[in-house]
């Protein structure tokens, strides 16, 4: 098992009749750590929520502050943020494809996905200078060191053109491989109704025909032409194919952004940090919707930060999807929602070594008052 969760399967012969998930060990306490920190210092910690989609966490936290304080962001900065987000989506989807094929037992396709991912990591490195935590967005724009100059522009364009072809080839190879398709087709079916019921986020929900993509609602993405990949079968095959096709769409967005990158400053420094009431932001991360909310006190220190990541609902919906499958397919189904437990487990409450049940009202008061 690659993630610290326990999937307990109840099987008859090899067929899963029931499934129970337990999420546990990871709890980093990031929300608590951020309490009382100056906002520009605190937000950088949000990148540590996840090592895969680190940019999107920082962007969403920053976005919540910008929305709350009504800070204008230069258009060039928005473009760079979008480029970073789509590169991150690419590398996240490639990790997903590697993970899914590894769970399938197809080591070669797994390795090839990782090889492809290296090219994307190079692009992320070219822009940000880092391979994992990029630290690109700051309140009011992006860091000046992450501006895309002529050299970076030509490097990005050259490498991206090759990447486009490679990802297409890889996707074709997966789709045309009858042995892979025999494993993923028809297993782990999540219907559209179930996807809606469990609020299945991101590409997992879209693979079940539930067409919610927050990018279409975000002002930062308004200028780009791209398709929302919606598939109907809702099985493991569609979840794999959705990621492969979304990767191609991401390359399309990055290309458009590079072609029409506006000139001008990359950050707006003319703002004042002041008391901010509760501000929220939703964003489409590679795995689905991310929610961030926070407020600031009069000195610009963080109060009641909260973050919600997509794995919780995505994985919960897989509890339903795996029923009726073979045991081995069950693990594939679990992996097919791209679980990321590192960013999902938020709190464990233990009092005197006993389990404690917290009511909804208590949760609300904890959130408002700071956990």
């Amino acid at each position, binding site marked *: 098992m690659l993630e610290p969760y326990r999937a307990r399967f109840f099987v008859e012969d090899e067929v899963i009749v029931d499934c129970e998930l337990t999420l546990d060990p990871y709890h980093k306490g990031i929300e608590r750590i951020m309490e009382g920190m100056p906002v520009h210092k605190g937000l950088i910690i949000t990148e540590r929520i996840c090592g895969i989609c680190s940019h999107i966490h920082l962007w969403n936290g920053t976005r919540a502050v910008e929305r709350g304080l009504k800070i204008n962001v230069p258009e060039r900065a928005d473009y760079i943020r979008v480029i970073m987000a789509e590169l991150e989506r690419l590398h996240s989807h490639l990790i997903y494809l590697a993970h899914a094929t590894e769970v399938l*037992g197809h080591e070669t396709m797994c390795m090839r996905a990782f090889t492809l991912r290296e090219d994307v990591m190079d692009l992320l490195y070219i822009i940000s200078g880092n391979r994992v935590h990029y630290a690109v967005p700051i309140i009011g724009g992006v860091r000046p060191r992450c501006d895309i100059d002529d050299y970076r522009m030509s490097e990005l364009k050259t490498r991206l053109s090759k990447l486009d072809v490679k990802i297409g080839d890889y996707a074709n190879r997966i789709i045309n491989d009858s042995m892979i398709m025999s*494993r993923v087709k028809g297993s782990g079916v999540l219907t559209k109704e179930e996807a809606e019921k469990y609020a299945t986020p991101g590409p997992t929900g879209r693979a079940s025909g539930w067409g919610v993509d927050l990018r279409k609602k975000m002002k930062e993405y308004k200028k780009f032409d791209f398709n929302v990949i919606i598939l109907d079968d809702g099985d493991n095959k569609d979840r794999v194919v959705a990621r492969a096709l979304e990767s191609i769409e991401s390359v399309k967005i990055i290309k458009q952004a590079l072609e029409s990158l506006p000139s001008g400053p990359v950050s707006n420094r003319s703002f004042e940090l002041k008391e901010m009431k509760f501000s929220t932001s939703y964003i489409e991360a590679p795995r689905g919707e991310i929610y961030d909310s926070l407020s600031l006190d009069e000195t610009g220190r963080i109060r009641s930060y909260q973050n919600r990541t997509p794995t919780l609902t995505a994985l919960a919906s897989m509890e339903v999807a795996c029923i009726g499958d073979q*045991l081995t397919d069950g693990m594939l189904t679990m992996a097919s929602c791209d679980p990321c437990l590192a960013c999902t487990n938020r709190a464990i409450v233990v009092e005197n070594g006993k389990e404690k049940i917290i009511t909804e009202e208590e949760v609300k008061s904890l959130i408002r008052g700071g956990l």
Partner: protein
Amino acid sequence: MIELILATILIPLAALITGFFIPGLERKVQARIQQRIGPPILTPGFWAILKFFYKEKIKPNSPMPRLFHSLPIIGIFVMFFAVLFTTPDWWGVNALGTVVAVVGLLKVIEFLFMAIGSFSRSILSVSMPYADQIKGAVMKGEYRRFFEQQSVIRAFKMITVGSFPLYLAMFVPVVLVKSINFSDIVQFQGFDASLIYPGGMIDLMYLNKILSLKPILFTFPGMLAGFVYFIGYIMLLNEYPFSIEKAKSDVIEGPSLEYAAWARGGYYLMRESILFVLSSVFITLFIGLPPTLNLPLLLVHCLLCLIMPILFSIVSAFSPIFTFKQIYPVSMGFTALGFLTIVLSLLAVM
């Protein structure tokens, strides 16, 4: 008599030495396909075993620990006997040099995997906490199964459906030659028993003799049977795509999980000897070159034994793990092909 003793010692030794190279070759080929360097050739097969033998002994959590520990050793001996039955020196011993005898030994090996699973209770299975059990809840009507037992059921299914193609293919030469004796089968393909004892000198004569063999593999039923044998070989080895018994993602290595330290070394040795023996039986049956005391011939035999593992590592590199949903039709298809090959062989000899 001296030849019998020498063959009994030296041929298993040659099998063991060849076996040391096979896992490394497998890994190397797969690594190259995956555009990686891969480990040194001797590391997975030879140095890994040495490392395991050096480690502190661990008592397994098995209901019958001694028997559990001895199973790989039994497997190694069984496999050595299988290869000895194909050597010319053993053909005369109690008429054991027959295909039927080797089939029986291979069945024992298949059963050993079941026994290994049944006798193991790995730490991951035993100590995994179940919250409802800790609280004292009784799971009525539920049977909690160990990882290894899940693999045992899979092993049982594989014995019943997975090994048919291999055994059917083994009987194609029997039908073509109209004899179950290895001596007749290799003689049919042009093997000259007088080559066995010239003293092990390298001579071009051997090369000529080897090239003048008329392998069953190059006949139409032989080719089909060879293909069926190859698929059955992968099934018997529980390798990709038929590695359902040890599908790591859901049952965590299955039966072999409990083996540690020197016992794991023994388990690795058993795997290596199986890898060699299955290839060796194939070379004897389909190419007509049995393992003999003659050094050049034995060397050629051992080199030919490396081909099949290389081929299966290529297949494994390009395939996912099959569940029984895929294994049943694949196995049935190859069983049908095996039957067809036997029918063709019957027609050929009639």
